[in-house]
């Protein structure tokens, strides 16, 4: 028989085992979020197509047609969409998962489960939209008769990187949000600015060479570059940025988990 010990300041060795034990709950949360997401909407699931499509149209017109940014030899909409894939995932994940603890406050104060479950499931829910967007991208590529390079098989690596970055930041934000509701205002800001700071509507190569290393400190730069590099075969992709992004994602994730774990025990008291 397993004995459960609850003590102050005890590092619960059970935590990771619990996280595994609650994997079904994780799936249930994903399932719930998907079920609920488009309830009482007129066009339902189509929103996950309409949103990227409209964003694509606006970014293509603003940066491609009006801003006359270089396309690097690929159709501009493809260039934009490859940047949008990880960006939309990151921004929705951050918005949803950042709020995940606060919006489930009732549960947090009434039932025990590893709180990470709820934040991680919020991030994972966004993968469904991501996959719908991927289908859309394939359709776009067929439309433009664009054949991806062999490197396309490296996409999963960048998906993992994208997921890690989103989870890492979300863990930080979700945990901070419990204490400081200020993040409710900070997150939309970050999402809004991020779209322009990250190379979503343009290539990172338009940034002057001497600033590129600095620019690459934004992990989304490396991730977006990576997507473009392996899907579109753009040689302009700045490979050092991918390395930087990988290291940063590792740090974000590790520190996110650390901070979340550290503050988790007091969530129920202050939420």
């Amino acid at each position, binding site marked *: *028989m397993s*004995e*459960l*010990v*609850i*003590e*102050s300041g005890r590092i619960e060795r059970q935590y990771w085992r619990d996280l595994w034990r609650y994997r*079904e*709950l994780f799936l*249930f949360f994903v*399932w*719930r979020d998907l*079920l*609920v997401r488009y*309830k*009482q909407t007129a066009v339902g699931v189509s929103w996950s197509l309409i949103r990227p499509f409209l964003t694509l149209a606006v970014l293509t017109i603003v940066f491609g047609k009006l801003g006359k940014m270089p396309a690097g030899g690929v159709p501009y909409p493809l260039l934009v969409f490859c940047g949008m894939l990880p960006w939309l995932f990151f921004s929705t994940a951050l918005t949803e998962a950042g709020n995940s603890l606060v919006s*489930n406050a*009732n*549960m*947090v*104060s*009434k*039932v*025990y*489960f590893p709180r990470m479950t709820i934040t991680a499931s919020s991030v994972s829910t966004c993968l469904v939209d991501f996959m719908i967007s991927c289908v859309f991208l394939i359709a776009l590529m067929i439309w433009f008769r664009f054949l991806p390079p062999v490197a396309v098989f490296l996409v999963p690596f960048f998906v993992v990187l994208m997921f890690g970055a989103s989870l890492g930041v979300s863990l930080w934000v979700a945990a901070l949000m419990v*204490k*400081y*509701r*200020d993040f409710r205002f900070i997150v939309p800001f970050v999402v809004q600015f991020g779209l322009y700071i990250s190379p979503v509507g343009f290539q990172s190569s338009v940034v002057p060479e001497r600033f590129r290393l600095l620019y690459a400190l934004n992990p989304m730069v490396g991730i977006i570059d990576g997507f473009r590099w392996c899907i579109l075969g753009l040689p302009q992709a700045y490979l050092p940025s991918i390395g930087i992004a990988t290291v940063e994602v590792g740090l974000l994730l590790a520190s996110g988990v650390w901070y979340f774990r550290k503050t988790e*025990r*007091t969530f*129920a*008291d*202050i939420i």
Partner: protein
Amino acid sequence: MHPDIAISIEGLGKKYEVDKLKAQDEGLRHVIERALRAPLATMRKKVYTKRTREFWALRNVSLQVRRGEVVGVIGRNGAGKSTMLKLLSRITVPTEGSIRINGRVASLLEVGTGFHQELTGRENIFLNGAILGMKRSEIIRKFDEIVEFSEVGEFLDTPVKRYSSGMYVRLAFAVAAHLDPEILIVDEVLAVGDAAFQRKCLGKMSSFAQSGRTVLFVSHNLEAVRNLCGRAVWLENGSVREDGAVDQVVENFFNAMSASSQFSSQSDEYGFAVRRVVLRDATGAESAQFTPGADMIVELEYSAAKPLEQPYIILAINGVNGTCFTANMLLDGNRPTVLQGTGKMACRFKAVPLLPQSYSVKMSIRTKNGNDRVLDYSDVAFFNVVGDLAEYGFAGEFVSRASSSTPVIVPYEWHLPDGTVAPVSLSGERVQNKQIDSVLSR
């Protein structure tokens, strides 16, 4: 730890830092501001700790619960009951001390936690089950039982936001009732739902307790505690005041509580306040104990800053199984023309035919339209009925079960085949041995 012990609590304490909580509410700006003003101090957390005031919600609590024991936790609001449950459920961590739990635990601090308004009953059963720690396969296996227990079968595919509150609670409790832990920790979940459903819940709980599992039950319903539990723990100001056999502890707690029963409630909107509710016996003396069949006077002192015209006052006497009887102005129409200034009013319940149990008086006050609540329906006073039932014609071998029986007894007589007539009555006059003709002989 001894294998017979299910829960062992040692020196448990939980401290909240009141002002620190406030500081946290103030938000990020203050933290940054403080950091800028006094960077070193903030780093050393000196400023921070100076401003905090400690508040121990629970302190030095030690408790051992044996396997198969059913323990009731009672106490006033704010005595630390909820904190203790939160610690046991691992929702929050203790500041000091330790808890050891031996066995699979399910804790139920609320029914319907995590129910999602937009989802259907069916979907919510799965979601809620998973939140309470059930496996998917387990929920599938018990699904039909849950649906049957909840009595909402035909609305299974309707979003729960369209449910009546009764249906909602039934469904929620049904899921919880089918948890199958070795140790069950339950908070005041029975305070919801109608009387019939509460009875069903209590039945489920007692069958659970009788199956030899460990239960920790927190409730304000003293009668339910008395029926379900063998032992009670009385918490006061965060520590254990008394721990022992349920009857003794409940009685002591009850007496302490009614001695200082000082209900007061206020409605700012209507400028109306009930300053005090007092129970009096037939002689007019303040009392919280009545004999069966005695008169009981519920007296309330009010103060009305604004005149309250033609209010409806509703009093209800509640026992184990819900409301026993009421005095309801919505029905009888005897409302006061106006309540203003300060004053008193009372309601005399005559020859109250109640069995010796614990009861509460609930009150609600409504405006003259009969709908808007000046004061919400809530407990305003508590009382016990005490007495030796043998004196009232109760001579059965199982008379001890009267403590869990339906409490209202109107006078009745059995007319037996052999012609004997056996009268039973809780009325003031004791049963005399007078000759009564059997109805059967006519």
